[in-house]
């Protein structure tokens, strides 16, 4: 193959450890005892729950609807009963809980009525997008961005290139590899459906050269499928993190996604192979996304292999199925060893973005040794795929000098972990960056909040002043009216010549005026002075105005 390939800066070659989990074909584990479905499995708004505890659901039935444009639908992975909608541990690095729908399977695995479109080429792209949205498909590569949103770029851009990410560059993970080996035809048809929606000029599948079997089966599938457009299978050199979206785009096209932009800005849309297969099932078979292929590997497992897992299956049941050696297990990682996060509970479920569960022993992935001083060796810089200066970011992040960190483009860090991997001083660089990014986000949030509070405070002061002024006006008007009336009365009484009555009226007037003035001055003082103590004392005075 003489196609020109580009290279991205840096990158590393960690031990692959992929052979362990590719010895067996993909297996479907037995139905779990219960399914835990977090309402947030993706980027965007949480889904909106549509079911109630005690409700019976069928396999593939919609149980949560997207709440907003960037959100996701969710379906029951099997038939059974919703037993609870509650907070449960979710797969998240924090180990926090979140709202989940919990379903107890009834063992019947009974489908809702569903049907696919036999000839998608005659369907409108809008219709296909609608089906993808209703099927709850999110990017299965790891980020979990709703696919229907990604396949619907803004009107202003034309998509020239569709890139299918089959790189799977992280060590240990073989889910995409096995999917391509066994279901290459589904993948290719899924790609063709996506191409039908996007109408790109070229379609490229990027795959690392360490997956020869998958390459072979993809080639066969491409050859057998009738199509209007050729799919180019591009074999790229194995290097981590060439499977990063931005890196893959650079390798295949030589273009860079502009800072702060998305691939669509340069006419490219990237999709994962697993997502393509899910699109195929949604369109052709009418099946929503309710299962995925997940790699179970690591030395703590007796039988490392790939499983076709129902979304929501608790990890511990699957580990059991893969013959977990409990005493050996030291670290449980969701995702790969470079970017995955450690799980704090083994009862969390597999979700739509879970491509791998790594159950490692201590010998396999030892604890990080204590951090030593940075010697500025620059190894981190030579491996950074984003061409950042990791050691500078480290100094700034550590000293909480976030302005400088932002100036050094901290926010362009993709957290691939290459810098930490090579650091001879065992500095957890990525953790520093993650913390700094979190702090920056938090500070920004607080700043907008405090601006908002200030606005509300100022509005309130203004409102109170206006109310006070309005009252003052009213009083003046009343006084004037009273003065006029009494003047008229005076005239009348003068005419009658009753002196005593005049004196009486004058006395009464002054008395009334005095009491009025007293209350007036009191309340106006209260309004000018927003001090809390005064306010509470005269609370009753204000109440009529609120």
């Amino acid at each position, binding site marked *: 193959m003489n196609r020109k390939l580009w290279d991205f*800066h840096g990158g590393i070659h960690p*031990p692959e450890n992929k052979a362990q989990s590719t010895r067996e074909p993909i297996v479907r584990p037995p139905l779990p005892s219960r399914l835990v479905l977090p309402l947030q499995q993706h980027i965007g708004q949480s889904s909106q729950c549509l079911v109630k505890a005690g409700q019976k659901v069928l396999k593939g039935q919609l149980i949560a609807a997207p709440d907003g444009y960037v959100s996701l639908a969710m379906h029951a992975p099997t038939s059974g009963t919703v037993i609870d909608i509650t907070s449960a541990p979710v797969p998240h690095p924090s180990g926090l809980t979140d709202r989940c729908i919990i379903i107890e399977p009834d063992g019947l695995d009974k489908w809702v009525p569903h049907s696919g479109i036999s000839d998608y080429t005659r369907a409108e792209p809008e219709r296909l997008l609608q089906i993808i949205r209703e099927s709850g498909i999110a990017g299965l590569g790891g980020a979990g961005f709703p696919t229907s949103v990604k396949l619907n770029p803004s009107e202003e851009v034309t998509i020239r290139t569709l890139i299918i990410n089959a790189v799977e560059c992280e060590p240990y993970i073989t889910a995409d590899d096995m999917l391509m080996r066994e279901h290459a035809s589904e993948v290719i048809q899924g790609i063709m459906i996506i191409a039908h929606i996007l109408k790109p000029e070229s379609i490229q599948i990027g795959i690392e050269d360490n997956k020869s079997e998958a390459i072979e089966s993809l080639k066969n599938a491409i050859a057998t499928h009738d199509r209007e457009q050729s799919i180019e299978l591009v074999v790229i050199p194995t290097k981590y993190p060439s499977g990063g979206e931005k890196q893959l785009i650079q390798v295949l096209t030589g273009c860079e996604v502009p*800072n702060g932009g998305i691939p669509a800005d340069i006419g490219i849309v990237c999709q994962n192979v697993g997502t393509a297969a899910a699109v195929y099932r949604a369109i052709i078979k009418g099946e929503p996304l309710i299962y995925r292929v997940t790699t179970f590997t690591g030395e703590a497992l007796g039988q490392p292999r790939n499983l076709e897992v129902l979304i929501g299956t608790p990890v511990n049941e699957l580990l059991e199925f893969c013959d977990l050696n409990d005493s050996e297990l030291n670290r449980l990682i969701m995702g790969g060893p470079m970017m995955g996060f450690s799980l704090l509970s*083994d009862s969390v479920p597999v979700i739509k973005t879970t491509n791998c569960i790594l159950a490692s022993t201590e010998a396999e992935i030892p*604890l990080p040794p204590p951090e030593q001083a940075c010697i500025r060796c*620059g190894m981190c*810089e030579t491996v950074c795929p984003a061409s950042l*200066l990791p050691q500078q970011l480290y100094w700034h992040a550590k000293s909480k000098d976030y302005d400088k960190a932002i100036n050094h483009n901290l926010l362009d860090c993709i957290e691939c972990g290459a810098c930490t991997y090579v650091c001879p*001083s065992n500095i957890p660089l990525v953790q520093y960056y993650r913390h700094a990014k979190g702090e920056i986000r938090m500070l920004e949030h607080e700043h907008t909040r405090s601006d908002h509070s200030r606005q509300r405070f100022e509005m309130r002061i203004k409102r109170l002043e206006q109310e006070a002024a309005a009252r003052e006006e009213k009083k003046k008007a009343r006084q004037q009216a009273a003065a006029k009336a009494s003047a008229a009365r005076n005239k009348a009484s003068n005419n009658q010549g009753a002196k005593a009555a005049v004196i009486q009226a004058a006395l009464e007037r002054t008395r009334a005026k005095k009491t009025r003035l007293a209350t007036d001055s009191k309340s106006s003082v209260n309004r000018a002075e927003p001090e809390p103590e005064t306010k509470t004392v005269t609370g009753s005075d204000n109440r009529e105005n609120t």
Partner: protein
Amino acid sequence: MALLKITSPHMSSAGKTGDVMLTVVLATLPGLALLTWFFGWGNLINIAWASLVAVSCEALVISIRQRSVMFYLTDYSALLTGVLIGLSLPSLAPWWLTLIATSFAIIFAKHLYGGMGQNPFNPAMVGYALVLIAFPVEMTSWLAPKSLPGNDQIPSFLQTLTAIFPFVGGEAVDAFTMATPLDTFKHKGEQLAAQLWASEPVLSPSSWLAWQSISAGYLLGGAYLLYKKVFTWHTPVALLVAMTIISGIFWLIDPDSYGSPLLHLLGGATMLGAFFIATDPVSSATSVKGRLYYGAAIGILVYIIRTWGNYPDAIAFAVLLMNFAAPFIDYYTQPRTYGHQISHQKTRSGQ
């Protein structure tokens, strides 16, 4: 089963700071062996003594700072500083000279700036420069190499030990000392270069062989370090190329008064400097492009100081001068981040 909360990446490569330092120490061996072969035991004793002083000073300072002594000693950075000082000093440097250079390097140049990773200057070169300025006589008396015909005065181990530590009380020796090739060349006065090569014993083929071999030894060690990926090629190659070019230009213009590139590359501490001193990561520029500038500037500075300055060799001064400039170089050689258009404009406007 206790599950751990650890941030990714969970894997890490093998090379650790301590290993890196030990590899560098190991890579000095060919040069050291040749040095010992041609000049006797002096440098070996110096290195042992300097290392002992360096490690003791390090341990002392760390314990004063209430840190874990073993944790810091096992990064072997102090050992490396000691070895480099021992290699740079003349072979019969008296014990107190080494003591001053090494303790100053560790205590002042390293720990007063905050310790490992914080020092803006190369500690070994700070120590070396201090004694070079303060004790110029002791610093320029080198032994005549063993390969020089008629030189049967290479002192024995005990004699060397006595020369370095006079209180040991062994038999004193009146060793045959002479200037280094660069020194000789510098003070040639009106003599033509060719005459000098013909007349001076230190530039005679047999003596020149010694200097050449030692440089070759360091080159070999440097090649090993490059192979082990301890550092990238940028700094040493830029240094050597820049020096070759600038010395070549002047030599071609006037070969009678300027030294040949070969003299500059092999006649002094150039190879030691290029591979073992300038590559010290802590005090050098860090960006790839920056290291090219950094190395080239050292090469040119060394040549300038050697040719027109007061000192016959200039690795220490050139390296220290460029240490000053390293942050500046780094600032202007920031790589272009993926997806960004211009590299440092944003930083500049942001500051």
